[in-house]
């Protein structure tokens, strides 16, 4: 074998080219592996959706009671709950608040802001569990009380929030 490789000039050259080829393959493999590993995205969409959902729920329910302003016609959820409307409407977020009475009828129109298609996208994510580029949602359902004509009634509050924010690398000029 040794004779075959080293004793002939042609074989020796072939051996060098072969070695160079191996080095290139190994190099490309290591560079690709490291690049893929360190450019991995830290996915916090679900945590963001949960935070948004909790923030809204804590804002509209005070000590178990639904806030009264919510039934007003010009109720501004973003102002009331200190949520920036521009960020929510940037395309990366969505939320929907639905209030149901004891007969499961809507007490008022749903309050929503952001990209409404997230609701359907989130259903797809729930069914497939593999749609990585899709938004992630979090739904929180709580029971509370509200007063109507001096009587206390039960209300079911459903807050659905979704996020698809990826963030981004910025260049030195920005």
């Amino acid at each position, binding site marked *: 074998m040794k004779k075959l490789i080293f004793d002939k000039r042609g074989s020796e050259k072939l051996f060098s080219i072969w070695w160079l080829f191996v080095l290139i393959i190994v190099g490309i493999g290591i560079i690709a592996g490291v690049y893929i590993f360190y450019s991995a995205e830290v996915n916090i969409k679900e945590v963001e959706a949960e935070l948004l959902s909790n923030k809204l729920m804590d804002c509209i329910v005070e000590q178990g009671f639904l806030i009264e302003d919510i039934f007003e016609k010009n109720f501004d959820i973003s102002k009331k709950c200190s949520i*920036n409307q521009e960020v929510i409407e940037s395309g990366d977020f969505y939320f929907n608040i639905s209030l149901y009475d004891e007969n499961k009828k809507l007490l008022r129109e749903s309050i929503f802001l952001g990209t409404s298609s997230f609701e359907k996208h989130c259903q797809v994510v729930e069914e497939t569990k593999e749609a990585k580029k899709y938004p992630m949602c979090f739904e929180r359902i709580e029971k509370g009380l509200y007063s109507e004509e001096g009587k206390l009634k039960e209300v079911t509050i459903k807050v659905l929030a979704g996020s698809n924010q990826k963030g981004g690398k910025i260049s030195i000029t920005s």
Partner: protein
Amino acid sequence: MDKKGEALVYPLVIFVVLNIIFITLLMLFVFKSSTGALIYEQTYAKELALLIDGAKPGMEINFNFEKGFEIAEKNKLSSESIENLVTFKDYQVTVKLSNSGGYSFNYFSDYDVSSSFEGHILKIIVKEK
């Protein structure tokens, strides 16, 4: 060494030296990538945005930024850049640990956020608007 000996030794020496150079370059690349800024910029920006969104007005948050400083110093950032490693502007937190840019992430809370460094601790003050 006669000519025959030289002809045998030189290619071998070149071969070994080239291999050493190749392995060193690869190791340097792996080491630089592992201590690189990109992953830390992203992690810090997202962590800080989550902290802001989870905070309540009136809160003061102390955040350990030691590793960030370490990377910024390794990347030889100017003292001016060191002061602006983390900025909160237009509902966006930006972390810059290298001279090649930074990483930005939005927070949805409509708060007035300000920050300053006290040593390696990032002090964040969250106020109502």
